[in-house]
């Protein structure tokens, strides 16, 4: 294919619309396109994704390719690999950026194997050095990093951890939206999606949440979790949980934040009775502001907290709720 130019970003659309990680990729994609030269193209695969494509087109893309196909209504690795392979052939980019979501992390390696290309997983920073892409990624549970350098002609591929970059804002301009048809064969559709189960309909979703109040084992008993719910209500936030309390069956899995749960990047994250194990931190350290309430001054959560309170959560949380309500009144 020869060395390509420009950046290709894959946008992701979930059940509740464009995933914000897509807008983060527009930000870093734009700066890489400027550093390396060439256009920023965004491909939007899915079913009924016109609205998402418009948002992307208004947020700094030079060109938007839409692959709207009812067989893309729910994610499957085979179909997504075929679509993105097609988009790569169509654009021949220097680099391809994919959201580091469960889907992105699922098909990116398959795509890299099909095209025999280098792939860096779950990157938190991307830069250009001597014309080549350089990616920083956490390893060993997140305390340690490694810097990956791409060689050869590329395209170079990276999955990017949600929350690593600012979200792109509307620019006032609208990029051209082009519709792309991709042939999908039996080999691309070996997995049949039956349904997607939603464990709990009451709770708000975490991945796009602006504010999250999360609780951990410090709450002691499932019943006491109402303190977290009350604080979340006072702050107009969604409820999250550590794995310890999800494993104990106090909270549903979709509320779990961390390595084996959701990666979240809200503006505000309040950790109540959570120690801050690395596997938890990797899921929430992208938050703009982190508040920690814990009685142990040495709890690791305080190392990344913007505001920490060392104290008994059963006293502190009710006091905070009262204070917020007083401030609002």
């Amino acid at each position, binding site marked *: 294919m020869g060395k390509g130019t420009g950046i290709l970003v894959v946008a992701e659309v979930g059940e509740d619309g464009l995933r914000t990680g897509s807008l983060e990729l527009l930000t870093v994609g734009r700066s890489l396109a400027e550093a390396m030269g060439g256009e920023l193209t965004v491909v939007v695969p899915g079913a009924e994704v016109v609205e998402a494509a418009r948002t992307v087109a208004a947020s700094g893309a030079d060109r938007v390719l839409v692959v709207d196909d009812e067989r893309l209504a729910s994610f499957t690795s085979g179909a997504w690999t075929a679509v993105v392979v097609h988009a790569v052939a169509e654009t021949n980019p220097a680099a391809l950026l994919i959201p580091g979501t469960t889907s992105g992390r699922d098909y990116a*390696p*398959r795509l890299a194997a099909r095209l025999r290309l280098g792939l860096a997983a779950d990157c938190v920073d991307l830069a250009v050095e001597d014309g080549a892409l350089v990616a920083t990624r956490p390893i*060993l549970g997140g305390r340690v990093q490694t810097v990956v350098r791409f060689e050869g002609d590329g395209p170079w591929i990276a999955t990017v951890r949600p929350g690593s970059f600012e979200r792109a804002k509307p620019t006032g301009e609208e990029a051209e939206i082009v519709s792309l048809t991709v042939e999908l064969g039996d080999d691309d559709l070996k997995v049949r999606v039956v349904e997607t189960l939603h464990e709990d309909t009451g709770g708000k979703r975490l991945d796009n949440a602006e504010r999250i109040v999360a609780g951990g084992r410090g709450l002691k008993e499932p019943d006491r979790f109402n303190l977290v719910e009350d604080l979340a209500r006072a702050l107009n936030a969604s409820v999250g949980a550590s794995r310890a309390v999800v494993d104990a069956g106090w909270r549903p899995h979709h509320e779990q934040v961390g390595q084996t749960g959701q990666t979240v990047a809200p503006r505000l994250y309040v950790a109540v009775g959570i120690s801050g194990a690395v596997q938890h931190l990797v899921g929430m350290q992208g938050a703009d502001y982190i508040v920690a309430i814990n009685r142990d001054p040495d709890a690791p959560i305080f190392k990344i907290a913007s505001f920490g309170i060392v104290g008994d959560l059963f006293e502190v949380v009710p006091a905070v709720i009262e204070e917020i309500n007083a401030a609002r009144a």
Partner: protein
Amino acid sequence: MRIVVLIKQVPDMNTVKIDRATGKPTLDGQRVVSSFDEYAIEAGLRLKEQHEGEVTVICAGPPSVKDAITRALAMGVDNAVQIALPNANDIDTLTLATVLVVEIGKLEPDVVLTGQNSDDYQTGHLGPQLAELLGIPHLSSVTRIDGGDSEFSVQRDTEDGKQVVTVSTPLLLMAMTGLNEPRLPSIKGMMAAKRKPVEQVTADLPSAAPSLSWSEPFVPERTVTGTVVQGVAASEAATQLVTWLKEQKLL
């Protein structure tokens, strides 16, 4: 049913310490089976219990990986292939997949199991890359496996909820927490493990130029330093927090 489980030996994450002077992690502590791979082994054993057949583990790495293989055999795996490789973290995942796929292919498996990702390098690449090279479908974040001999119903974790899919063999499944509770090796299992066959193989590394290289692990410098309120009454701490929230325009 022919079942192949891929396992990696990694440093025990609880023994990894950061040497603040050099900014480097110490990785020479105890070595264990990567945590998700234990779920993969357990899933393989349960498939065998339901459908009969044979479970083989494959592990590539330095001589020390023998211990990881022994643990899998002691849990109940039937036999193993040990691929000699000085350091599995020195080659990129696609190159490693190319090496592993040769041995997996020989076994003609119905089901291949891997971990969702390894504890140390955490790429999560190997599963999908092996599946692509084998020409079979894969499913990641697998939390439940039900099913018959050639048709499986599988649940996977996604941001939207639990996705339920059906798929036929041969296929590759990437094991996630929540899939099962891995069994501990029994004394009897440990004795039996000594007599189970372990095939020794040397890897033929492809000579193609790598598409990536990476630095030694390092510890990033911390940038955030926050306010910590300690030793004051709950009401006073609450007042300070609410003042701070207002200052940051979070309230």
